[in-house]
Structure formats: structure tokens, C-alpha cells
């Protein structure tokens, strides 16, 4: 996290949990960045990352694990999906790189 703050980067966690659930989750895992609540799935739908899950025969749609790096111009610089997206190292490396003055 210190590396990220140094590279002018903020992290936003996003899921379809309620703000109340996210508040308890944030406390449990002691995160310092905001956890955003997409309860009506508008962002997950807009980003096209709703994934069907089957739990004991019932169908659900939750987020696909996804990491997206957005630069200061609002442009996407990196997309990582699936289980690899749990590891933040590549996103951190990209942000550190974005922070370097362009030559």
C-alpha cells in the first residue's frame, strides 16, 4: 500500500455487498481503502463482469474477480481477470510505472 500511495494511486474495492457488510469486512481485514457497494449491479453490468454462480441449485450473479487500472486521464491501462486478479503485484507495478515522469 505504501508503494501505491507513493505512486499517486488509490484502490477502490467493489462488490455487490451492502455498505454495512463492506464496513464490517473492511474492519475485519483492516483495509485502508474504500470498499464500494454495487448493490444494483450497475457497474458490474456496465463493465460486463457479472458471472453466474450456482449455489445448491440456485443461480446467482456476482462479480468476476477483476483488477482494472485506470490512469489519471480516466483511461484503462490494464485489465486482469480470474484468479490471477487476486494478486495485486502486476497492478502495483503498472501504477509505479505510470508515476514515472514520461521522457
Amino acid at each position: 500500500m505504501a508503494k501505491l500511495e507513493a505512486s499517486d494511486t488509490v484502490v477502490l474495492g467493489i462488490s455487490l455487498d451492502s455498505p454495512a457488510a463492506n464496513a464490517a469486512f473492511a474492519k475485519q481485514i483492516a483495509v485502508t481503502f474504500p470498499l464500494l457497494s454495487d448493490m444494483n449491479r450497475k457497474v458490474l453490468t456496465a463493465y460486463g463482469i457479472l458471472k453466474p454462480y450456482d449455489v445448491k441449485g440456485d443461480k446467482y450473479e456476482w462479480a468476476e474477480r477483476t483488477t482494472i487500472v485506470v490512469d489519471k486521464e480516466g483511461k484503462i491501462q490494464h485489465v486482469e481477470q480470474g484468479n490471477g486478479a487476486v494478486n495485486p503485484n502486476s497492478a502495483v507495478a503498472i501504477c509505479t510505472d505510470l508515476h514515472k515522469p514520461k521522457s
Partner: protein
Amino acid sequence: MKRIVTAVVGLLLLMLAGQFSATAQEDAIAKTNLKVGDVAPDFTLLANDWQPVKLSDFRGKKNVILAFYVLAFTDG
């Protein structure tokens, strides 16, 4: 000769199997249509303190890592 045919068929089957499992894996990921270079669709969502957070508020100020996770209290 028979052995060679068996080997070739076996190899073909292996290749096919590989292709199928690769497709299945790809299908398993809900792939975004967004690409590098696209403008990230803007949004406003409530944070865990019930305050709205708007993506475009960071424009010109910060890089943003959007970390989508499946559900709170699970491993990712």
C-alpha cells in the same frame, strides 16, 4: 503401422482435449469488453461509510485500481 496409427490418433485426441479444456477455462471467466485505452465507464457508488465515491473525481489527480471481488468475508 498399427502402432503409428494409434500414436497419431492418441496425439490428435490429446490436442483436441487440450483445446476443449482451454475453451472451457475461457468460458468460465466473465470477460469484460473493456480494453486497454478505453475510457473507464464512470460511476458513483456508496462506500463502506455510506458516502458516495465517484470514479471521475480522481481524474487529473490519481491513478485508480478497481479491485472487483466476489463477496465480502470470502477469500477474494
